[in-house]
C-alpha cells in the first residue's frame, strides 16, 4: 500500500495499537428519559447513540403485522457532522438503507420476537462521530439499548471488524485502515454459541486467509462482549442502589 503504512515493522498500527488489540470501548445505558431503552457507546473515536422504543402496537402500515412475532424496525442515520466532510444526506441514501436492513436482520435473529406477536420494536441508531467500524458500534450500542428496554434476547450481540495486512489479521479497524483499500470483514456474533448473525466482507482476500480472518474477528467480538457484560452489570448495580434494593 503506497503512502500510509498500516502495520509497522515492530507490529504497531497507526494509532499505536498492536495487531489484535481492540479500541477502548466505553458505554452508558439509560441516557434518555423518554425512550424505553437507550445507550451511548464509544468505540475508540466512533461515537454512537442507540434508542429503542417498544414493543408497541404496529404503527403505519397494517400489512407489516406478523401474527406470531414482533416486527423489528431499524433506522440508521449519520449526523451531518459525523464525517470529515459534511454529510449532505443523512438518511435515505443507499448505504444507510443497507445498514438499516442489516441491523434489522441482525436483531431479528437475536431478539425473542415470538414473545410479542402483532407488535413492533423500533431501534434507532445515530452516528455522532464516525471513525471506522460504524456497523459494529451500532450493533453494540443497539444491544445495550435493547437490554435497557427490557426486551429479552438470546444472547449479547457483539460486532467487530477485522482486516488483513501483510498476512496479519488486524482487529477493530479505524477509518484510515478501512479506507486504505485493504480487506475489511464485519461480523456480528452471539458469543456463547459462536453463531454468526451477520457477515459482511469487502475487498479482495484470498480464500486461504478467510479462516484466520474470521477467527480474529470472532475473538475480537468475544472481547467486546466481555466489556458489554461489564457495562450491563454496572448499570444494574447503580440502578438497584438508587431504588434502594
Amino acid at each position, binding site marked *: 500500500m503506497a503512502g500510509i503504512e498500516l502495520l509497522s515493522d515492530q507490529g504497531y498500527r497507526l494509532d499505536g495499537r498492536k495487531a489484535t488489540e481492540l479500541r477502548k470501548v466505553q458505554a452508558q445505558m439509560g441516557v434518555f428519559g423518554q425512550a424505553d431503552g437507550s445507550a451511548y457507546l464509544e468505540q475508540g473515536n466512533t461515537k454512537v447513540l442507540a434508542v429503542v422504543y417498544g414493543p408497541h402496537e404496529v404503527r403505519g402500515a397494517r400489512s407489516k403485522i406478523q401474527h406470531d412475532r414482533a416486527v423489528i424496525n431499524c433506522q440508521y442515520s449519520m449526523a451531518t457532522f459525523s464525517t470529515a466532510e459534511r454529510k449532505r444526506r443523512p438518511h435515505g441514501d443507499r448505504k444507510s438503507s443497507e445498514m438499516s436492513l442489516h441491523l434489522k436482520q441482525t436483531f431479528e435473529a437475536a431478539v425473542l420476537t415470538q414473545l410479542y406477536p402483532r407488535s413492533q420494536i423500533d431501534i434507532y441508531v445515530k452516528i455522532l462521530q464516525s471513525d471506522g467500524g460504524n456497523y459494529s458500534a451500532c450493533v453494540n450500542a443497539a444491544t445495550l439499548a435493547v437490554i435497557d428496554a427490557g426486551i429479552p434476547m438470546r444472547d449479547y450481540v457483539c460486532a467487530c471488524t477485522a482486516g488483513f495486512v501483510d498476512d496479519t489479521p488486524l482487529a477493530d479497524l479505524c477509518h484510515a485502515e478501512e479506507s486504505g483499500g485493504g480487506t475489511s470483514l464485519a461480523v456480528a456474533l*452471539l458469543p456463547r454459541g459462536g453463531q454468526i448473525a451477520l457477515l*459482511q466482507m469487502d475487498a479482495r482476500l484470498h480464500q486461504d486467509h478467510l479462516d484466520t480472518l474470521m*477467527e480474529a474477528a470472532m475473538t475480537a467480538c468475544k472481547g467486546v462482549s466481555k466489556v458489554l457484560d461489564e457495562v450491563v452489570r454496572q448499570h444494574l448495580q447503580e440502578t438497584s442502589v438508587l431504588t434502594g434494593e
Partner: protein
Amino acid sequence: MKDTPLSNCERTFLLKAIEERKRVDGRETYDYRNIKITFGMDYGFCIVDLGKTKVMSQVSCELAVPKETRPSEGILFTNVELSPMASPAFESNRQSDLLVKLNRQLERCLRTSKCFDMESLCVISGEKVWRINVDVHVLNHDGNLMDAVSIAAITSLSQFRRPEVSIQGRDVTVHTAEERDPVPLSIYHMPISVSFAFFQQGSYLLVDPNDREERVMEGLLVIAMNKHREICSIQSSGGIMLLKEQVLRCSKIASVKVSEITELIQKALENDKRARKDRGKFGFAESLPKERITALKTQEAPVEMKDIQETASAIISKAEVPLNTQAVRSPVVHAVGVGQVGEGVTSSWGLEEEEEEEEEEGDKEGEMEERTDKKKWKKGDVVVISDSEEEDVVMLNQ
C-alpha cells in the same frame, strides 16, 4: 401489486422435499441452472439467462469531472433496475429492500474489488475522466437475481469498448468508431457472485435457489469470488445464524462454481469476438430466426421412440386382466353415424312410445347419439314428460 402468496401446502411440500434432499426441478444440491449468454449489436450489451431468470445489461461511457478525492481515476457507476415486467411484486419508482440489496451488492462486487483499471480511464487529470455506467435491468424474476446480475455486469464490462481519445495540449478529441477502433477496458479479474440458500436452521444449503425455493428459505449467503480463488465480497442476509465451518464450506463450493462460470463467460466472449471478426451475423438480427429472444421457450428434448411398439405390447401382455368387469358387448353399427353399445335400460320417465325407442339406442354413446336423436325427431315435436295436471312441462325440440 402484491405477489401471489405461497400456499401453506406448497410451502410444506417444498420444505419436506428439501428435507429429503430433493429439489423440485430435479437439480442436485450444488447444481446451477442453465446459463445462456447472448450479446447484442453494440459493444457492452448482453442478456444473461439463468434458467428462467432473464437479466439484461448495458455498459456506456461518457466524459465527466472526476471526484475530488481521486482526480486521476475514472468513475464506475452501477445501477440495477427491477423492471415491473419481471414480477408482479415489482413496482416502478419504488425503492424496495431487494433493490437496495442488489444495488449495494453489485457496487461492492465491482467497485471495491477493483476489477478493472480505473487509472487508464483518466483523460486529463483533475478535469476529464471517463465515467462508465453499467445499467442492469431485470426482465424476468425466477429466483437468484444476484448471480444473474453479477454475471451480466461483468460480461458486458468485459465486452465493452470505449472510444479512442487523443489529446493535443488541452484539446481532447473523441474519435468515433469509424476513425479509430474502440479500446477495450483492462479487466483485472472477473468477480462472480454465488448464492447459497439455507434451510433447517442452517444445516442444509442449496446453490442457486429458484423463485419457489427463495420464498421458503430461511437465509441467504452471497459469496463473490474470482477464478484466482480470491473472495471479493461476502454478505449474509435473512437473519440466520451461521457457524464458521459453514461459511468456509460455502467458500470452497463457490470457488468451484465460479471457475465453471468464468469458463463459460470466456467461451461466450470468444465466440462473439470470432463472430464479429468474420463479419458473421450476430446480435439481435440473429435472435429472431434462431428463436433466442423468446424467453420461456422450452428446448425440444429428443425422446427415444425405437422400441415403443414392443415395449407397449409387452406391457399389455404382462398386465393382469382386471377383475370385476362386466363383459362389455361390442358396439353394433346400425347405419352411418349410428352406433349402439349394449341394450340400454328401459326408461321410466313416462315418455311416449316414439321416444322410448330413441332412449334405447346407445345411451352410452353420448354426443353422436344426441345428434342422431335429433335428426329422427320431427321438427315441432313436443314431448310431455309428466302426466301431472298441475305442471305443464314442455320440452322444446331444437
